[in-house]
């Protein structure tokens, strides 16, 4: 704590930098108007059904199956993007090769691409008559598009850049000293990576995983084309929300939305706690 000590009798410390009132005011106003008010409306809406109605809505087998699909698919996709994402980050930070900058830029494209476009492209690629879908099915008998696998593929596509972009700056700042020290002490390259590099990357990796997971849970546009949308099999929760809205059933739609919000919040909170603990252990 190198900042100014609080003057006696003041509850707020004196600020060296002016403008606290204005900036904090803008922040809180934005948070209130754009985030909290809509979320409060979402949280209030389902109770028009009454508690029993909300519980009934959420316990419908189709809703449970869709929530399982969305959260399970997002978890698998985010997990899969951890090793691949670290690999990508490693390649663009540690090596110098022609086209590296271009590759670096391309990795951000999934952020900018309208997800429906991504979904259409992935479906065309993985459909049973697509460039990849046809050979995969011929060789392994495995269908990708129009199955839960297709959902995971689409979610992986949207989750991956989050892992790459959170791990990459940490990897870039990681000093080579520790790795060299490990090598001097006789560690093999593999041991160095497993015992030195990856632990240092762990907090950032968890953040990337959490962001990718959160993004994938709510994903709609890219999934809807490739999923096949079969109830109980490959139907995602956001689609069920749309289905409820299509019946003008706003309250049930909000109930599913609220459940997703609560589940995501719990998952992100747990990740946050875990990440803090790791970071403390690391320092």
């Amino acid at each position: 704590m190198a900042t100014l000590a609080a003057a006696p009798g003041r509850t707020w410390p004196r600020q060296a930098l002016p403008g606290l009132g204005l900036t904090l005011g803008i922040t809180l106003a934005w948070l209130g108007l754009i985030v909290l008010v809509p979320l409060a409306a979402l949280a209030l809406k389902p109770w028009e059904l009454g508690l029993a109605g909300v519980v009934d809505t959420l316990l419908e087998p189709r809703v449970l199956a869709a929530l399982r699909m969305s959260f399970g698919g997002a978890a698998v996709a985010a997990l899969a993007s951890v090793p691949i994402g670290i690999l990508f980050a490693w390649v663009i930070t540690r090596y110098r090769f022609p086209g590296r900058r271009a590759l670096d830029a391309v990795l951000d494209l999934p952020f900018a691409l309208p997800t429906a476009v991504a979904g259409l492209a992935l479906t065309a690629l993985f459909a049973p008559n697509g460039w990849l879908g046809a050979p995969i099915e011929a060789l392994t008998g495995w269908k990708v598009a129009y199955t839960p696998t297709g959902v995971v593929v689409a979610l992986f596509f949207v989750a991956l850049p989050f892992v790459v972009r959170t791990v990459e700056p940490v990897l870039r700042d990681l000093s080579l000293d520790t790795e060299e020290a490990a090598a001097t002490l006789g560690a093999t390259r593999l041991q160095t990576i497993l015992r030195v590099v990856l632990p240092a990357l762990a907090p950032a990796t968890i953040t990337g995983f959490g962001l990718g997971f959160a993004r994938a849970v709510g994903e709609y546009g890219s999934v809807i084309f490739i999923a096949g949308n079969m109830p109980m099999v490959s139907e995602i929760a956001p689609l069920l929300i749309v289905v409820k809205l299509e019946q003008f059933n706003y309250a049930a739609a909000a109930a599913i939305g609220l459940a997703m919000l609560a589940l995501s919040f719990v998952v992100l909170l747990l990740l946050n706690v875990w990440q803090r603990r790791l970071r403390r252990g690391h320092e």
Partner: protein
Amino acid sequence: MNATILSRRSALAATAALAVAPARAQQAPTLLNVSYDPTREFYREFNAAFATTWTARGNPRPGINTSHGGSGRQARSVIDGLAADVVTLALAYDIDAIAERGLIARDWQRRLPHNSSPYISTIVFLVRRGNPKAIRDWGDLIKPGVSVITPNPKTSGGARWNYLAFWAWALRQPGGSAATAEQAVAQLFRQVPVLDTGARGSTTTFVQRGQGDVFLSWENEAHLANQEFAQAGLEIIYPSFSILAEPPVTVVDQNVERRGTRALAEAYLNHLYSEDGQRLAAKHFYRPRDAAILAANAQRFPRIDLVTIDDVFGGWATAQRTHFDDGGVFDRIYRPGR
């Protein structure tokens, strides 16, 4: 009360309304027609034709905008504040939903001739060239090994017509009852590998992704796909009978009163019933109500026995409640452990 949770959508709708409807309604009148997906091509041509007629009657040239999307979603946008002057949707149920919120008079369907449906359509089959699975009628859809493409009836108005047409067929079979029809429909959906959310998505799945042996489609969508994807090699099959689809139109009373566009909106809808409008509908493969124009296009519209929602299902409200609402027949089909 209604529809305030998704305020982002309302804001978008309001912005869209501002963009298409500047406040100077007296000088340059504008009209917003909120419609559903497959009418895009038809209304593009119809709007130009109507504007010409209306101007020729000594009125200032109106600006006519059309918004397209899934029928149910379009109805929701109007409920949430999209300032539509007229709605031209896929089913009466969607307009009823707007009327329930007080934006349209309850008796809207009696205000224009023919149940306020200036053109009709039906459901036909689209198959691959040569019809390899020999699909001729509804019964062939549930033969083993036949894979069927239809959108999800929960999200697509067109798909509800598909479903109800098949149900009507099942009822007509010897010994047909609600129970046998439900079994047949359950079998049908076991043979559906992909449920898209709308008719256009299903067209893509069938034509471009090569999924399924037969695609249940609006008659006009089938013809459009046939023209658009001539190289894909498709054939239209007319089953022995089908359902009479009546896409209805009406004026959104609250909006035209507020914007002072009632005369223009009513003239617009009446023009759909005129010779000009009927001819354009036929050109875009909607069956015209005008007997003479229908006869002139006889080779486009093969005679087909059509049943109505009112006769078989007792109206849209009942059909919707029995089949598509939560806990209805469609949900029962997808219960686990059936």
